[in-house]
């Protein structure tokens, strides 16, 4: 343990030492321990609380509850139900809509904040950080208090004599507005570092080369930032698919008329699904997992592309 900073390559080199079995096994064990010991608590936490649960879910989606043997029966049953198809479709539409709006509003916001002086930058970062962390039930309630059926803004607008019907709490537009409250700040905070990649002297060099601002954005700024923004879009897409608390709070207000979302279906299947039980939840969870993983793989591709010039 005394040689902390020995070259890293040596640690892995122990495998090649041949010799008699027992001492080499012991050495190998000790070498392995020395290389991994400090990471073991973290790896334990991750494998029991993240990896094992995922494996169990996938397993259960194929075996069903209590049934024996692998089968796709449950999958056919669940995916055949109209309510589940509806939930998957609505979740995807909501996620695409949400992340697109986020991109359109968030990208210029991130750009402007990244070019601010330190004081106002810190102010906005603080504000966005609060908003990005403010989600779940609290946000659902804040939405109701603001533009719910008897929300403050609703009352003010109606008080001005304008005929305004607030969207029902559990409806798609309501969810969109509420989700954006955390999504836009999240997107801005995630893309500001990328914005600082655009250097001031590129703009200056473009000016010297007789380019207008439009030409600069079309030929230089746009192409460089595009993959970062696409990566941000994918991240928000994934994130939106998985939002539960806000939807739970808002959908509860609209009862049966609320939209169907995958996450809400998982939650309700857990609480009160006599017919298919947690098996349905498991399958919906795996569906969500597939979307999320695909999106994450695309996200990585985008990032690699974003970094190829830098």
């Amino acid at each position: 343990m005394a040689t902390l900073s020995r070259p890293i390559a040596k640690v892995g080199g122990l495998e090649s030492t041949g010799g008699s079995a027992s001492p080499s096994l012991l050495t190998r064990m000790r070498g392995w321990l020395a290389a991994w010991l400090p990471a073991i608590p973290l790896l334990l936490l991750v494998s029991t609380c993240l990896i094992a649960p995922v494996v169990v879910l996938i397993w259960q989606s194929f075996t069903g509850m209590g049934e024996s043997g692998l089968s796709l029966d449950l999958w056919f049953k669940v995916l055949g139900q109209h309510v589940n198809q509806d939930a998957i479709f609505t979740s995807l539409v909501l996620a695409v809509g949400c992340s697109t709006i986020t991109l359109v509003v968030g990208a210029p916001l991130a750009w402007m904040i990244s070019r601010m002086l330190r004081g106002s930058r810190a102010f906005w970062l603080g504000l966005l950080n609060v908003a990005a962390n403010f989600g779940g039930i609290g946000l659902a309630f804040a939405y109701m208090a603001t533009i719910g059926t008897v929300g403050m803004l609703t009352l003010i607008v109606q008080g001005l004599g304008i005929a305004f019907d607030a969207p029902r709490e559990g409806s798609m537009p309501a969810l969109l507005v509420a989700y954006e409250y955390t999504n836009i700040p999240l997107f801005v905070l995630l893309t500001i570092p990328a914005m600082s990649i655009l250097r001031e002297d590129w703009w200056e060099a473009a000016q010297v080369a007789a380019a207008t601002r439009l030409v600069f954005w079309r030929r230089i700024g746009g192409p460089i930032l595009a993959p970062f923004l696409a990566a941000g879009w994918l991240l928000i897409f994934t994130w939106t698919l998985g939002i539960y608390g806000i939807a739970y709070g808002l959908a509860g207000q609209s009862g049966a008329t609320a939209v169907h979302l995958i996450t809400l279906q998982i939650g309700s299947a857990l609480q009160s699904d006599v017919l298919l039980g947690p098996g349905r939840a498991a399958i919906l969870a795996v569906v969500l997992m597939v979307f999320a993983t695909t999106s994450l793989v695309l996200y990585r591709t985008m990032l690699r592309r974003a970094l190829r010039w830098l």
Partner: protein
Amino acid sequence: MSGVSLVGVTKMYGHVKALDHVSIDVCEGELLALLGPSGCGKTTLLRCVAGLELPDKGTVEIGTIDVTAVPTRDRPIGMVFQSYALFPNMTVRQNIAFPLEVRHRPRTEVKTRVDELLELVNLTEQANRYPKQISGGQAQRCALGRALAPNPEVLLLDEPLSALDALVRGRLRDEIRRIQQRVGITAIYVTHDQSEAMAIADRVAVMNDGRVEQIAAPADLYDLPATQFSATFVGSRNAVELAVREGRVGIPGSFHIAAPEGSNGHALAFFRPEDVQISRGQTGDGMRARVELKIFLGPTTRLHLVGEDDGRPIAIFGDMASRQARLIEEGETVRVHVDPDHVQAFPILKAGQRGS
């Protein structure tokens, strides 16, 4: 081609005067170096010519046209940045073609011109590489090609070599000079490196605190710095504080010259190490000085010498040919002469006055 003339250019940043009534004329086809320490305003001045900064007062003319209010993109300039500022999403070829494409030149013309420039800056082989894939020296040559592409009237270079390592720096410096002379373009070259300025420029403008201290050809600047600042900043010099006696200053036995005007008891004498003559032996003329340290510099060896004047120690550097210096030991006492023709003296300014 045309020259550049700056008249009374002043630029404030809050309360800091970055440029203080600067007036400079750059002749046609000339390379003028702006030399000074960091924060002296040289880059700001260059950026005023480029239009990236707007002067608060004064005018900038390119040729005979007043461009003070003309936006950067309409000025007939090319510029090379310290950080290269190559567009990372374009290849070398595309970078050089960019200013031509922006100006909507016909495709065939662009191709011919870019090929010509690739040849000029010697990047034909790297034409299809991205900035990430080429070395710093190649990147700066590419930036030079991009700056020259639209045939600008003035080339502006903002510390183009300072991000490069020493070997590449020397080579690229000569190459920039060669290209500038071949194209015959008027150029302004900002640097904080005096040897670079001397090597490349037709004339050097020494700047300090937002003002121009002196404009002169490199050789004149080297021999006869006009101000105390120029004397300290250009070349390595001995700066020795001496008492004024009967209107003269000097080191007894070494030199005496007339005291500078306005000196008040003491004066600062400047002379170069190579103008210090060192002789061995105890007897004869010259100030007696002890050799404290010998530093081998290749062809010459620098001696750190400590002599005495009126009981006060005087420390000076002297250079001598290395072959002779081998005979001198550290700790030995030698005799020191200074050629009075190469000594310049300036009055000592009180603290707070400019120029110290």
